[in-house]
């Protein structure tokens, strides 16, 4: 696996080099029937470029640009101008890229264009706009992430573990210490240094004229002609055994779980198609077809859903389909187990569960790991393979239902060294065999070494830690109502799951107040 990582790193650096050679790259998607024009400016510069001590600077920079004014117009004046046109624009920042997206009704494209141009070429960086951005960013990394969605929180905590000590560790919006250290001058300098004509990819879709595009290309050539020093993306750490971090907080109704380990391949690799089939079978996002969903939710109703991932999935709680604009060259596999019940709640709800010490987290984790182990050992059947492939060949096309999505996926394709990811994956899926998939599963998946994060109630954290450390049996605690009707095969499987061995090597409780501290290498 280590060699594979090195090879991927080398490939990434070649891609970077190739990107810089083809200075102005434009992805075009002309759609004369569309009623809008979509423009995307993708800068190859994400939160991995945040300087030490200023985690969150790239995000603050992009947000200040998009929220602010230009050399001759205040943010307010811009808002007034675009108001009747209902223009949409935003900046999305991820680990490796920043994407500015503008969507304008076709008849207003010409009128709006000078504002787009000036926002990018001569942003005002007004002090008020910046302070506002920083305050909100600070609020997000300090409070909102810890107290809004325990699922998103456990996902961020997993990344914090996986990438500890690397430039991938901190959240895109930064850390408390990092954001407080950001000053307006940092933002200005960062923009100049990292948003250049040489790390920009232009994308345009919809109903635009050749002259419009020419002007855009010409203007974007006036961005600085320097070559930004983009650091190599940090790689995910390989844990020794299963390492669990329990985030303990007050008043949590459930245990929100994420687990993952490094994955050597990305959309760049042809093997990705094989893993896509395996992953869809195990845990397609927000679908009831996956094995994890079937066993954890449908059969046992332990939570709202359970899914697996072979790449970063932006805002899984909100998005039913993957969004473009978040390409990453450092990859990992993950499983998302939505909040399961804690002992305190179960005891209150059902008298018969009065004696339990922990809720359902350990059982759910065991079930997921066992399911994956079985898939690794036995592979997919030919029948399951055929159906899953058929599904994906149609489903992947739903990723690109709008001009904005089509353009975004095309631009991401280039990031991965592909021309058109959706159609190329379709071609790869077409020639795939069940043997290819089962080989890929064995090659890339394992369950002995994983990171696990569990955001849970403070009453659950201690007992759960002990149970995991000691690999205690975790019989599923059903209410009597459900227990009486359980089919015999479920009861039998439950017994196996309850004592299924997990290679747990370390369990640590972190108080919610102390998560996301600055990078320290090691676990």
């Amino acid at each position: 696996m280590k060699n594979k990582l090195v090879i991927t790193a080398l490939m990434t650096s070649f891609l970077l080099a190739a990107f810089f050679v083809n200075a102005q790259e434009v992805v075009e998607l002309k759609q004369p029937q569309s009623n809008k024009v979509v423009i995307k400016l993708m800068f190859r510069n994400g939160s991995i470029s945040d300087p030490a001590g200023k985690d969150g600077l790239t995000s603050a920079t992009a947000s200040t640009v998009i929220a602010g004014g230009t050399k001759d117009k205040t943010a307010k004046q811009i808002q007034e101008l675009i108001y009747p046109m209902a223009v949409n624009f935003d900046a999305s920042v991820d680990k490796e890229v920043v994407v500015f997206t503008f969507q304008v009704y076709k008849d207003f494209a010409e009128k709006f264009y000078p504002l787009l141009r000036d926002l990018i070429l001569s942003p005002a960086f007004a002090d008020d706009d910046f302070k506002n951005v920083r305050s909100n960013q600070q609020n997000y990394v300090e409070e909102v992430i810890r107290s809004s969605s325990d699922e998103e929180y456990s996902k961020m905590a997993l990344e914090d573990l996986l990438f500890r000590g690397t430039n991938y560790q901190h959240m895109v919006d930064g850390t408390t210490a990092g954001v407080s250290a950001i000053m307006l001058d940092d933002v200005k300098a960062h923009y100049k240094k990292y948003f250049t004509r040489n790390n920009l990819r232009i994308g345009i879709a919809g109903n635009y004229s050749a002259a419009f595009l020419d002007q855009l290309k010409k203007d974007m050539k006036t961005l600085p002609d320097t070559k930004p020093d983009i650091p190599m993306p940090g790689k995910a750490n390989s844990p020794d055994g299963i390492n669990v971090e329990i985030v303990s907080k007050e008043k949590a109704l459930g245990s929100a779980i994420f687990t993952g380990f490094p994955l050597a391949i990305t959309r760049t690799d042809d093997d990705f198609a094989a893993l896509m089939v395996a992953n869809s079978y195990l845990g397609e996002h927000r679908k009831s077809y996956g094995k994890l969903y079937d066993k954890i939710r449908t059969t046992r109703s332990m939570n709202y859903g359970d899914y697996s991932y072979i790449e970063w999935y932006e805002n899984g709680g909100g998005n039913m389909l993957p969004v473009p604009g978040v390409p990453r060259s450092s990859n990992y596999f993950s499983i998302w187990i939505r909040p399961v019940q804690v002992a305190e709640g179960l005891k209150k709800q059902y008298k018969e569960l009065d004696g339990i010490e922990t809720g359902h987290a350990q059982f759910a984790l065991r079930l997921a790991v066992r399911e994956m182990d079985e898939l690794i050992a036995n592979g997919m059947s030919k029948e399951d393979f055929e159906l899953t492939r058929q599904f994906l060949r149609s489903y992947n096309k739903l990723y690109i239902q709008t001009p904005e999505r089509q353009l975004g996926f095309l631009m991401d394709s280039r990031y991965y060294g592909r021309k058109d990811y959706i159609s190329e994956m379709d071609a790869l899926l077409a020639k795939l065999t069940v043997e290819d998939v089962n080989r890929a599963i064995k090659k890339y998946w394992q369950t002995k070494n994983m990171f696990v994060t569990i955001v849970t109630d403070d009453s659950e954290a201690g007992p759960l830690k002990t149970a995991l450390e000691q690999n205690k049996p975790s019989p599923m605690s059903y209410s009597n109502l459900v227990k009486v009707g359980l089919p015999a095969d479920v009861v039998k499987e439950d017994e196996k799951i309850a004592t299924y061995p997990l290679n747990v090597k370390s369990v640590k409780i972190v108080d919610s107040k102390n998560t996301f501290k600055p990078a320290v290498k090691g676990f």
Partner: protein
Amino acid sequence: MKYRLFSLLLLLALNSGSVAGQTSAKNKILPFGIFQKKLANGLNVVTVPFSSPGLASLYIVVRAGSREEVEEGKTGFAHFFEHMMFRGTEKYSKEAYDQVLKSIGASANANTSFDRTVYHMTGNAGMIEKMFEVEGDRFQHLKYSEHDFKTEAGAVKGEYTKNSASPYQQLYEKLLNTAFEKHTYKHTTMGFFKDVVDMPNQYDYSLVFFDRFYRPEYTTIIVTGDVTKEEVNKYAEKYFGGWKHGSYSPVIEKEPAQVGTRYVHIQQAGFPPYIGLNFKGPAFSDHNIDLPALNILATLLLDQSGDLYQQLVIKEQKARFINGGPGLNRDPLLVSFGISAVKAEDLQYLKDELMKALEKAKSVPIDPKKLADTKSNIKYSFAMRLDSPDQIANSMALYTWLTGNPESLNNYYALYDKVTAADIMNAAKKYFMANSLTIATISPADAGNVK
């Protein structure tokens, strides 16, 4: 400027001109023809063809949501029932249904709200007959075991559990419970937690629920995209034609007029303080001017170029964001405005400033250019969303559940043309009253401390 802008809307591309049919798209916000056919059993079938090669969306709108949960102890049931609809039939077990969806390669799901439950799938237009077949089967022949019913209740509790992590969600539950006394809008669509915990005991009631609401007269089928009305109507007749009309009609208690401001509060440290002002609002109507008037006012008031945003968010930096507006619902719900505060000590100030702006709206007419610009903003925002079969079907579904007639979409947007500055002042006077207000707060303190 206004009229020029609006006429441009008619040029919304996607070959709209070629599909004029029973209802012409002329002078309507939706640049596509809406073809409706009512089957003999009362089921309304709506087709909106447009260019989306190989792709179609099928939406099934059932006009039953948490609004219809009139019985004590049954809150959250419409949503729970939505879950049960995925538990299979004799012909297609849950597994078989999943296999069909997988083979279609569809993105399919469902969701429930106050006034409706919507089932939707988007996928290969060439498989439209199969979509009709499996949906027709489960809407008429749903069959699940008592054990499956009890088990599924756990998933609903799981959904409640994941939602409850958000203080906004907690506040919303309290807000409805306080702002409403009699009407079923008193509870959220998720239901009260005690009712959610009790759901496994309600198997018999679930059969009653299916019998009452999963009937053609409650339902509309909407198909958009690469389809013809002929094939849609043919499959609707084939797979839903035998569905029997029902006889149930719920009695939903009217909410008595509110007397005096009410208060709800969530104590939460480590979370941005928040204040929400929630007034009783109008019910949806596609011929009454109040709702578009309120929407214009809210859009203008909350826009980032507006005075309020500039003052509170940009200059004073006491607020992080301001949002709100009137809800679109069958019965009167709320017109809400919310402010995320930087400091809890500013909550009173923020409330006062927001109230000042609302008071001003009662007596100071909106500048004509601002009014025209806002109308333009609202209409172009809508037009920009008409990109895919799914988005279009989703928009149609909204107006279908509100009135039962998808043409309400066109009628409602046409109302915007008529709104005057006086209408807006009248609406402000009518709805922004202390008597009908519920103030909702989140802060580290044990009370909102806002008057």
